[in-house]
């Protein structure tokens, strides 16, 4: 299908773009909220991409074997949480360098899921599929211009992931746990002196954050695509990491960023078929370039949690 240039000016076009943009944003948004929780406790998890793809594969396998989308989502979150617990043990307890451990987890996740997928499901050009969930239409609201299709005509998994994101954002806004979480990331010594177990807080935050990343991966595969391929996350984990910075470690802005990025991605897909002089490869590169530009505009003078990436060692500890 070749897209005519005049179509870009119509409401129909933008309604469709926004709808697929929101659809594309839920998986990366879920992972980004997870990473935000981890980082606010002071742990930088560069294993996000690997955790996400492990969640994606586990989610696919669980959904394929059980025949249930929901078992798939649970499988993705569990696998992500397990990877996060392992990562947490390495960087929080043993104090392995966070950047090194994170990068290794990512490289491990990308390779091991490719291996498991070949072994279990073969590497035929037509991968086995799981049925994607049906669309849930919210009456009346779905007819709203521009945003109706985007927010009130999505599949069930997208609503659940959206609810998890909003729920997390709300929980973090109101709860005492947030204060403890931020204390562990901003002033671990003070948190420790106040009687909080910084190590435990960081371990929990890393595990929970990674469970959300695994869920994000499962949402992508089980909730949208319906199949698994090696490298199916295609850099979404890294985009989620960028979104945390872009959103300045605040849930609302991360969600805004995720929708923005998702819309850009949707636009990119459509522009690839645009009948124009611009080569389609430029549009493939576009989301990454725009993310960089957004970070360049918004990064100056912005600092994450003060103790981000710094291992915590109790002064009374023997080693």
């Amino acid at each position, binding site marked *: 299908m070749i897209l005519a240039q005049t179509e870009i000016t119509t409401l129909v076009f933008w309604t469709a773009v926004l709808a697929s943009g929101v659809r594309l944003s839920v998986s990366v948004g879920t992972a980004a909220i997870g990473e935000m929780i981890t980082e606010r406790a002071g742990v930088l998890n*560069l294993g996000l991409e690997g955790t996400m793809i492990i969640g994606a594969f586990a989610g696919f396998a669980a959904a394929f074997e059980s025949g249930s989308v929901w078992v798939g989502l649970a499988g993705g979150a569990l696998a992500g949480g397990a990877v996060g617990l392992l990562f947490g043990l*390495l960087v929080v307890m*043993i*104090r*392995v*360098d966070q*950047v*090194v*451990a994170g*990068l*290794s*987890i990512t*490289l*491990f996740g990308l*390779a*091991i899921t*490719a*291996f498991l997928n*070949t*072994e279990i499901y073969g*590497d035929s050009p037509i991968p086995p599929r799981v049925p994607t969930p049906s669309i849930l239409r919210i009456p009346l609201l779905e007819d709203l211009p521009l945003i109706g299709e985007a927010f009130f005509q999505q599949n069930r998994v997208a609503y659940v992931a959206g609810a998890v994101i909003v729920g997390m954002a709300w929980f973090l806004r109101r709860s005492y746990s947030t204060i403890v979480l931020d204390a562990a990331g901003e002033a671990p010594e003070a948190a420790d002196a106040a009687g909080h177990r910084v190590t435990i807080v960081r371990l929990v935050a890393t595990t929970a954050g990674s469970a959300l990343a695994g869920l994000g991966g499962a949402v992508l595969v089980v909730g949208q695509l319906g199949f698994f391929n*090696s490298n199916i996350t295609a*850099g979404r984990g*890294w*985009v989620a*990491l*960028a979104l945390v*910075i872009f959103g300045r470690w605040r849930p609302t802005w991360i969600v805004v960023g995720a929708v923005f990025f998702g819309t850009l991605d949707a636009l990119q897909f459509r522009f690839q078929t645009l009948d124009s002089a611009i*080569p389609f*490869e*430029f549009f*493939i*590169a576009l989301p*990454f*370039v725009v*993310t*960089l530009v957004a*970070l*360049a*505009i918004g*990064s*100056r*003078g*912005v600092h994450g949690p003060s103790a981000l990436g710094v291992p915590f060692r109790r002064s009374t500890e*023997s*080693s």
Partner: protein
Amino acid sequence: MGYATTTVRAIAAPALSILAALVIGGIFIAWAGENPLSVYRLVVAESLFERTGWRDTLSRSTPLILIGLGLAVGFKASVWNIGAEGQFVAGAAAAIAVLGTVDLPSVIAIALGIVLGALGGAAWAAIAAMLITRYEVNDVIATLLLAFAAVPLLNWVARGPLKDPESFLPQTRQVGSGELPDIPWLDTHIGIIFALLAVAAMAWVMRATRFGYLVRAHGANRNAVYANESRRSSITVGILLIGGSFAGIAGYVVLAGEQLRVSGGTATGFGFTAIIVAILGRNNPIGVLASAVGLSALLVGAEAAQRQTGLSVTLMQAVQALIVICVVTGNALAERRGRTSARKSPA
């Protein structure tokens, strides 16, 4: 605690860690229905004791050594350039853009190719350097997203502006007189000699120059460096440009030694494997050389094992990452034990 125990620990900890990673890999091999011992035996036999095997190991390790050297400088200074894949691609594209159109004597063409590769890689890294130093973008994100952007652009270059008009495929012209000759009696191209020279040069730079000192100091305490020694941005920019140049030279070497043309298939992941190479080599030039050869042998052997048993090579890529995880964990544990026992016995 005596000196001997420390030395034993320094060797034993990584050795045990690598063993642990291989055992975990072995569990996966057994699960896939193969005998782990015979697969590992096959890997070693094919990569080190077959003529084609060690030849492939050498040519495979060449780009990994070159890229790993540049990354190691950055990692040592805590400047995390993980987008070498993009710089590699940019170097290859810059080299073919010129060498594909001119006909020069071989020696000049090769020298020009190295310079062009370095310039291309450095130019791509310079974008990251500007984002990081001027706009305070996170280094990991800036370098990596630029690598993701570089790969589709490479496809366009091979399909559009640099396409070989006589070919039906989306690929550039051949590198022509810039092709690297083979080492006599070894039938592998001379790239490995460049890589060894680069190891020696970097070992000297890191050990004996002011730049090497600044890199180490920047990794230990960057604020002290900014306060006393160097402008905030210049050291980071320098490190990124060096990393980009080495990755770009690797791009030219792979182009001129193996692929001969640039196409979408030029980006094969050397830039990402080199991250493992640098970390395992403990950011030290000699260590980079050793880990590049070791990891290449593992992969070359794994490819032979895939041909003979059908066991996917992706497993050994996972084992590579496992080796890093186990080694850094082993080192961290050994250091803890070292500290504890040193405290217990004041000698």
